[in-house]
């Protein structure tokens, strides 16, 4: 019983963090058709900004939302500076890998200069611990497990039930046709980046609440998010969400039965096998588009 509870809990928790990260990456891919390699740095920056605000004396309930909003601005600015000028280039995918990596490493070094290498921690969403099914868990982790699906559902509603969300989905599918119905394509690109950066920043706040922060804290989550997105299929945002939880459960089960040491190898093994059978990802449809 406790084995099942541990795997279930670990899977839900990891899956939530992965989903939070991957969905932003997928949003940017589907709308603009580029991979944002500063996505991990967004996560780090969100956490550090939240930490700084708390240090300045703001209560967490204010600091966290403010940090998320600031991250939206950061995402917008990054898009305008290192992505937008390149749109329309035939080799945009590769060029943007380089520009976002460069911007990311600049921000990372900036964070190191400003905040130093000493690890930091931000307050948990909810302090305290409890026991569920014989497994000791923190209330912070439970909060993450509960909040993440709500946020993802809100994002889904936004994309599928509002006019602005419809516009974002349209841009993802056909840029010329979007221009021809009068959409502000540039602003929508900015919006996609802003949303992605906010979600990454929030994931950073989640992470900084139970683990020590460092300026490179985002690089492993970025890698995981990339895996999730490729595994789930890069054509939608629902694919990566399912894939995030699937991988979360897989990792939780692996580390329970085989130990943490073997988990990455097993994960990559399954990933490679999957992509050999279904190169477009397990939940993918044929085209790019937000669904």
């Amino acid at each position, binding site marked *: 019983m406790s084995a099942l509870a541990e795997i279930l809990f670990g899977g839900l928790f990891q899956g939530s963090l992965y989903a939070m990260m991957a969905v932003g990456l997928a949003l940017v891919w589907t709308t603009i058709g580029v991979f944002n390699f500063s996505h991990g740095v967004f996560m780090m920056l969100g956490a550090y900004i939240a930490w700084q605000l708390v240090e300045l004396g703001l209560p967490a309930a204010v600091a966290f939302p403010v940090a998320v909003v600031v991250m939206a601005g950061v995402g917008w600015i990054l898009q305008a500076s290192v992505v937008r000028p390149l749109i329309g280039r035939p080799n945009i995918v590769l060029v943007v890998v380089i520009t976002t990596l460069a911007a990311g490493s600049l921000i990372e070094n900036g964070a190191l200069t400003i905040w130093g290498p000493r690890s930091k921690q931000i307050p948990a969403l909810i302090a305290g611990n409890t026991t569920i099914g014989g497994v000791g868990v923190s209330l912070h982790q439970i909060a993450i497990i509960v909040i993440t699906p709500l946020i993802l559902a809100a994002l889904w509603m936004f994309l599928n039930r509002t006019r602005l969300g419809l516009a974002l989905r349209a841009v993802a599918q056909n840029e010329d046709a979007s*221009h021809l119905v009068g959409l502000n394509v540039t602003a929508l690109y900015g919006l996609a980046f802003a949303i992605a950066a906010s979600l990454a920043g929030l994931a950073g706040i989640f992470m900084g609440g139970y683990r020590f922060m460092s300026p490179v804290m985002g690089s492993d989550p970025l890698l995981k998010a990339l895996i999730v997105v490729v595994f789930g299929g890069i054509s939608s945002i629902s694919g990566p969400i399912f894939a995030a939880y699937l991988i979360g459960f897989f990792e939780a089960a692996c580390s329970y039965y085989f130990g943490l040491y073997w988990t990455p190898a097993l994960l990559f093994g399954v990933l490679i096998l999957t992509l050999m059978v279904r190169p477009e990802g397990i939940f993918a449809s044929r*085209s790019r588009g937000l669904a």
Partner: protein
Amino acid sequence: MNPILSVEGVTAGYGRVTVLHDISLEAGRFGNVGLFGPNGHGKTTLLRAISGLLQPKSGRIRFDGQDIVGHSARAIVGAGLIHVPQGNRLFPDLSIADCMALGAYSPRARPHEAENREKVIKLFPKLAERWRQRVRTLSGGERQMVSIGTALMSHPRLLILDEPTLGLAPKIKDELCASVMDISRGGVPLIVVEQDIEFLLELTQQLYLVNHGAVATEIKPGESLDHGEIMSMYFGH
């Protein structure tokens, strides 16, 4: 009547390749305008320049008297100049309903959304049957209806159609031509690029033969030509 659209000495192309060489033409003075000519000679490029998808290297494009060169595609749509592009690629994973909502996205079109939706459904009753279906699951003819329907949702003051009947079966093509005639009778001036000269002769009052990125011949009302003469112009010399 003043022309609603005039293209004055436009030069445009892609990168270093120039496709349009100092092209000039007018629309709306005599009614609908047809463009024809061999493939690859710049008709689509001209329409892209008009609707702001492509920045001309030089020249002026006036819509309703105002120079729109340098205006964003969004501003041009906002002014009521609506372009249905060639090849009906559209939004493959959106439903017909979504496309219609997008058509009415601009602030100018939004107040007319309900009224225009009725018009579109009256014109293309087939779309109503498939309202929630994704565009990718529709036939070529239906996709073209969605393209044109989306444009009508934008409340056009001038409607540009780029080869609307391209690749359609004869029967579907006839139906679509009839619908385009209906749109014209409804009072929307048209610029139509078509390979089917018969259809252009029936629909338009003024024709331009576009050749090597410039107007080779203009055919004004009254100078009615028969099919044979046009064909000989088409294939030249």
